[in-house]
C-alpha cells in the first residue's frame, strides 16, 4: 500500500464531508487506540475503529467506505465514551455509513443495510415498527428463509409477535417527514459537492 501526496497536502473533501456530519474535527484523534481496545466488535472488524479514524484524517475514502468495520460497528458508544480526546467515533461510524449509502458504495454486508431498509420502510408505512413483518421481510430479502426460524414460534406463543401491525395515527405526517428528509439530505450533499 502507498499513500501518495501529489501536491500540497490539504484537508481532503472526504475529511470535510465527515466532519460536517459529526460537527467536530477529526484532527483531535491522536491515534491512541483506545477505541479499538474497547470495541466489542473489533475481533470481527477488518480494521479497528482507530484505523478508520486514521483513514478519515488522511482522506482515504475508499479504504474507509469499503471496510466491513462500518457495518460491524454495533453503535454501542463505548469508544466515544472513553476516547481521551473526546472524538465522537460512533458518530464517525454513522457518518461513514450514511455517506456509503448515499454514494452507493458497494456494501460488503447486505444484511445490515437490508435490515435498515426494511426497518425504515416499516416506519414510513406504519409510523411505527412492525416486528413480525420486519423479521419476515428481512429473512426473505437476505434469503435466509430458515434463519432464526425457531425463535419465531417462541415469541409467537408467548404472545410477543403480533400478526397485525399497529399503526400510528400520524402516518401521513411521517411520510411527509421522510420526503423532506430526502430533500434536505440531497440538498446538503449537493451543497457540499458544490463547495468542494
Amino acid at each position, binding site marked *: 500500500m502507498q499513500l501518495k501526496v501529489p501536491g500540497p497536502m490539504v484537508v481532503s473533501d472526504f475529511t470535510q464531508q465527515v466532519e460536517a*456530519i459529526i*460537527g467536530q474535527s477529526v484532527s483531535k484523534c491522536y491515534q491512541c487506540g483506545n477505541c479499538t481496545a474497547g470495541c*466489542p*466488535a473489533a*475481533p*470481527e472488524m477488518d480494521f479497528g475503529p482507530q484505523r478508520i479514524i486514521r483513514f478519515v484524517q488522511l482522506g482515504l475514502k475508499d479504504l474507509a467506505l469499503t471496510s466491513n468495520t462500518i457495518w460491524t460497528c*454495533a*453503535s*454501542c*458508544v*463505548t469508544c*466515544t*465514551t472513553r476516547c481521551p480526546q473526546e472524538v*465522537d467515533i*460512533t458518530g464517525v*461510524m*454513522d*457518518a461513514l*455509513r*450514511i455517506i456509503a*449509502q448515499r454514494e452507493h458504495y458497494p456494501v460488503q*454486508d447486505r*444484511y*445490515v443495510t437490508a*435490515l*435498515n431498509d426494511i*426497518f*425504515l420502510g*416499516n*416506519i414510513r408505512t406504519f*409510523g*411505527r*415498527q412492525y*416486528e*413480525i413483518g*420486519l*423479521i419476515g421481510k*428481512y429473512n426473505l430479502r437476505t434469503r435466509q428463509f430458515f*434463519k*432464526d426460524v425457531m*425463535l419465531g414460534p*417462541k*415469541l409467537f406463543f*408467548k*404472545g*410477543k*409477535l403480533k400478526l397485525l401491525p*399497529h399503526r*400510528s*395515527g*400520524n402516518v401521513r*405526517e*411521517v411520510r411527509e*417527514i*421522510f420526503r*423532506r*428528509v430526502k430533500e*434536505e*439530505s440531497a440538498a*446538503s450533499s449537493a451543497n457540499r459537492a458544490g463547495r468542494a
Partner: protein
Amino acid sequence: MRFAYFPGCTAPGSAIEFEMSTQAVLEPLGLQFDEIPNWICCGATMGHTTDDNLALALPAKVLLNAREMGGGLEVATVCAACYNRLRATNYEVQHREDRRAAVARILGEEYGGDVGVRHLLDIVVNEIGTEALSEKATKKLGGLKVASYYGCLLVRPPKMVAFDDPEEPRSMDRLVDAIGGEPVDWTHRTECCGGSFTLSKISIVRRLVNDILSAAKDAGAECIIAACPVCQPNLDLRQAEVEKQYGEDYGIPVLYFTQLLGLSLGASPEAIGLDKVIVDPRPLLSAKGLI
C-alpha cells in the same frame, strides 16, 4: 407525578412484559404516564446509521408531539434505545445550530431541545428515591441475587444521558437493594450485548451474550435484570442457542427491572407478564417464596 409517556415500538410486541410491568408499577409509585397521542417510532439505530437528518427528525417529532400535550410535561420512556435517541436529539439541537435549522426545515417547526426526557429507572431512583421505594415495597425479595445489566445506551454517552456513571452505574443496584434483593457485584454491567445486530450478525451477538451470561454466573447471580427491550430479548431469547454453541448451562432468567419492582409492590405474576419470559423465572421465584 405526571409524564408524557413514549412506549416505543416494542411495547405492544416483543417487550410486552416490559409494558405490562411498567403499567403495573405506575399506580403504586404514584406516577401517571399519559401516552403521547399518535406517537411515531424514534428511528432507533437504523435511523442514525442511515441518514443524519432522519435520525433527528423522527425523535424531534415525538418530542414536539409531547410538547403539544401542554403542561410542560417531561417525556418518560422505558426503552433505553428510545431514551438515548430522544436525549441525543435534544443534545444535538441544543449544541448545533446547523442541525437545529435542518430539523426546523424538515418538520416545519422550530425545536430547540426543551422537552425533558427521563427513563423510568431515573425517575424511580432519583425522583421517588430508594428510601420511599423501600417503604412502598411490601413484598421484599428475600435476598434474591440479582445482576443489574445496564447495557450501552442507558448510560452512554455521558454528555447526553448522564443520570448515572457511564462505567460503573449503580441505579438499578440501588433499586434492587431497596426492594430487598441482593445486588451482585459483577463486571459486565455496561458491556455491549450486540443489540443492534440481533437479527443481522448473530455470531457477534452470541459471543457477547455469552460473555455477559458467564460474568453473571461467575458473580453468583440468580437472575439478571435489564432496562432495555433490546437487551432483554438478546440475553433471554438467545440464551439457549448460546448455551449450545459454547457448551454452557446458564439457565439464568432475564427480567425487566419493572417486573421485580412490580413483584415487590405486590403485583400478580400475570400482571407483570412473568409467563412471557423465555427462560422461565417462575421456578426460581417460587422456590424463593416470591410467587
